[in-house]
């Protein structure tokens, strides 16, 4: 039996060597004359796929390749040199490297070196609770947030730099006090990364226990500006109250309440959207007594439901004789019979809490899908014209004049240069639309009755491949 086992091990070793040898037969090398490509047609598909990708040969049907159809390679300039068993050898001149030289290293490396897409600006956390060894960042009654750095009294200048000021090394000048440095800034709720710069030297907040990797080998401190406070009244005799929920993967001992008079409180940052949660009072799981919105999840757990976002009142005037009116949109995956509107004195209405963003929607009146007659702004999704609303818009595009135009469309990097949407609404002196845009650079143009124009009111523009220019807009964090 033992001998048999040894044989198995030997066979496995031989097999693994054979596999390794087979992998090595797929190769891309170079000689004075050019590139040499070896493909082992018997090697597994992923290995063939890998070697083809290394050789930048695209659109190859591997089955056809295995059946000796090399036309895709030949089309790409590879010449079949020889075939030995399953191994095929191709050569390719490298003279193409000479063609179309670029005049900037950046153009060459741009797609090869991945730039971090605004990495380090805001942590994408679902929730966050601050942890300090000694509180160094706190909220003021004025609504501003105070950042403090104790000590460093010999420093000539200290700055606060973070995602909130685009990591500026010049804008966040702190003021020297008797005990250290301080700055008050206006901050939106969120998970903000930051650092101090003392006499040009970058440093994490020494009092903040939460640091996150910055993706470049260093760390950043994180401050969570809260946007919601959980409250539990009563339970005066309780020893410990914790919070658990979908946002922290139902971990029980992570987030604790503190007692403030006769109320247990837990302020924290919660990303906008829907969350489910429970309180744990001295080990007993309860729903939030102050929240009537409850839900039994797939594990049979009865939880409280919280929607974090902006309340939007959808209203439809008239239709007094309608039986049922619903609203549906991109915010609820266009599910028709889910959000029912209530009858009001002059029509129908429903409040919905939505995260910041851009949404398409329609009303459904007794089964008929209709546009919102009170909203002149539209978007096209799957060739369908819809009403459009931006929740927490952070920029309004305006085009003055063009009173006789039939349609004015806004197109840009935010909608992948879609030529059909967004359709701006006409006002007394022009056309307008508000959008919620991500922080960073946005390129855009207006399309007036089919003619692309840059924004005449925006002096920032850059050249495009058609030599017609794109307007440039920077959205602050």
């Amino acid at each position, binding site marked *: 039996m033992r001998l048999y086992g040894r044989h198995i091990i030997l066979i496995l070793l031989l097999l693994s060597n054979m596999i390794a040898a087979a992998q090595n037969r797929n190769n891309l090398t170079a000689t004075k004359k050019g590139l040499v490509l070896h493909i082992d047609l018997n090697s597994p598909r992923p290995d063939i796929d890998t070697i083809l990708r290394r050789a930048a040969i695209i659109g190859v049907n591997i089955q056809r390749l295995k059946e000796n159809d090399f036309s895709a390679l030949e089309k790409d300039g590879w010449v079949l040199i020889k075939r030995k068993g399953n191994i095929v050898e191709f050569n390719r001149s490298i003279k193409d490297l000479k*063609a179309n030289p670029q005049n900037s290293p950046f153009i060459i490396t741009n797609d*090869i070196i991945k730039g971090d897409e605004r990495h380090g600006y805001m942590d994408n956390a679902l929730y966050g609770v601050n942890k300090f060894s000694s509180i160094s960042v706190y909220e003021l009654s004025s609504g501003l947030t105070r950042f403090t750095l104790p000590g460093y009294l010999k420093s000539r200048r200290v700055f606060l730099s973070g995602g909130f000021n685009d990591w500026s090394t010049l804008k966040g000048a702190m003021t020297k006090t008797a005990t250290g440095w301080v700055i008050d800034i206006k901050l939106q709720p969120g998970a903000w990364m930051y650092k101090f710069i003392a006499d040009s030297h970058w440093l994490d907040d020494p009092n903040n226990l939460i640091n996150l990797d910055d993706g470049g080998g*260093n760390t950043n401190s994180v401050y969570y500006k809260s946007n919601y406070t959980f409250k539990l009244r009563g339970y005066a005799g309780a020893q410990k109250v914790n919070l658990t929920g979908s946002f922290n993967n139902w971990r029980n001992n992570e987030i604790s309440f503190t007692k403030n008079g006769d109320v247990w409180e837990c302020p924290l940052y919660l990303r906008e959207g829907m969350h489910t949660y429970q309180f744990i009072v001295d080990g007993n799981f309860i729903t939030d007594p102050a929240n009537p919105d409850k839900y039994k999840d797939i594990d049979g757990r009865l939880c409280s439901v919280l929607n974090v976002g902006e309340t939007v009142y959808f209203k439809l005037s008239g239709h007094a004789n309608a039986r049922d009116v619903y609203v549906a949109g991109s915010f609820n995956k266009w599910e028709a019979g889910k959000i029912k509107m209530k009858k009001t004195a002059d029509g129908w209405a429903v409040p919905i809490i939505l995260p910041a963003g851009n949404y398409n929607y329609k009303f459904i009146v007794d089964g008929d899908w209709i546009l919102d007659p009170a909203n002149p702004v539209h978007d096209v999704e799957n060739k369908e014209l819809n009403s459009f609303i931006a929740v927490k818009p952070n920029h309004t595009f305006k085009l003055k004049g063009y009173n006789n135009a039939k349609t004015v469309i806004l197109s840009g990097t935010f909608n992948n240069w879609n030529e059909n949407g967004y359709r701006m609404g006409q006002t007394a002196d022009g056309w307008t639309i508000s959008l919620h845009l991500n922080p960073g650079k946005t390129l855009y143009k207006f399309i007036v009755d089919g003619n692309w124009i840059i924004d005449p009111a925006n002096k920032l523009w850059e050249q495009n491949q058609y030599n017609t220019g794109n307007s440039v807009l920077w959205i602050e964090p």
Partner: protein
Amino acid sequence: MCKFLLSALFAFLLFAGLNGNCAAKLKLGGISFPHAVIIANDPAPYGDFETLIVPIKRAGNLIIVEAQIDTLEGNFVMDTGAPYLVLNATYFRDAPRIDEKLSAGINGEANGGSFTTMVHNFSILDLHYSRITADVTDLSAIENGRGIKILGLLGTRLFAKFAVTIDLANNLLYIHKLDDKGNIPPKELVFKEPYLKMPFKYINDIIFLKGAVNDKTMWFVFDSAAETNLLDYAKAKKILKSMQIINRSTLTGIGGSSFEVLYARFDKLTLGDKQFLRNRVLITNLEKMGKAYDYSVDGILGYDFFSRGAFTINFVKSDFEMYIYNNN
């Protein structure tokens, strides 16, 4: 009249003083130097420091330094591949034009819209330039590729009277004032005992280092804004056999045109008397960049090389030093 003569004499002396390298450039490269007269009139920068320490930021493999033009603060790329200050046309299109397109250096996209301007009150922290000549050109490709607002490029001329040390591990730029002999005063040295110390040729405001790839001699441009090493196709052809090919890529250039590169590995990069092992390089056609430099370029040493250590460039003595973090 006397006043005019004195002014002319002053301008001549200033020109001679600021362009001490000019004769060498003409002799070495047989080159034209279109900006010489204009730049010669730029007053010398000033600042109350011996060594100015400036925090740097990173975007991809780019080194970003914040500077100020009048009241406008913003990001600039530290770019030893650019000869002068270069400004992004998106934000400086309306700057006064003192000359139409001359040269933008290779990181500025030299297209029809480029021109030369004069900037007043330019500052990097405590280093002030009361007046400085700059090119204005389209830098949108850098901005769009890296997702941050770029006001311009800090070319070598800005530091012509200084030595600069870049310490990537600590994200710091040191701008050193030099003593009468052109050295960093010993008490101001940030690092001691360099791993590599070698002279460079300062041609057309660009740093050229003599070295070798797998024993084949090459002249490299040292470009702090090159996110990888680059090697010219024609030079690489002769040593291709000694390199390992990582992959071949077809990429898209300005205006949607496609071009090809080979990403390769090679064992031995020699600079001065030192060897750097396990190097990566992009092989492509550098002919056009050579034209922008007015001098042929065999290769460009970029981030793959200089991220191995802190480095000091002494522009007055034309010395390059490297303090190694990692030679693997």
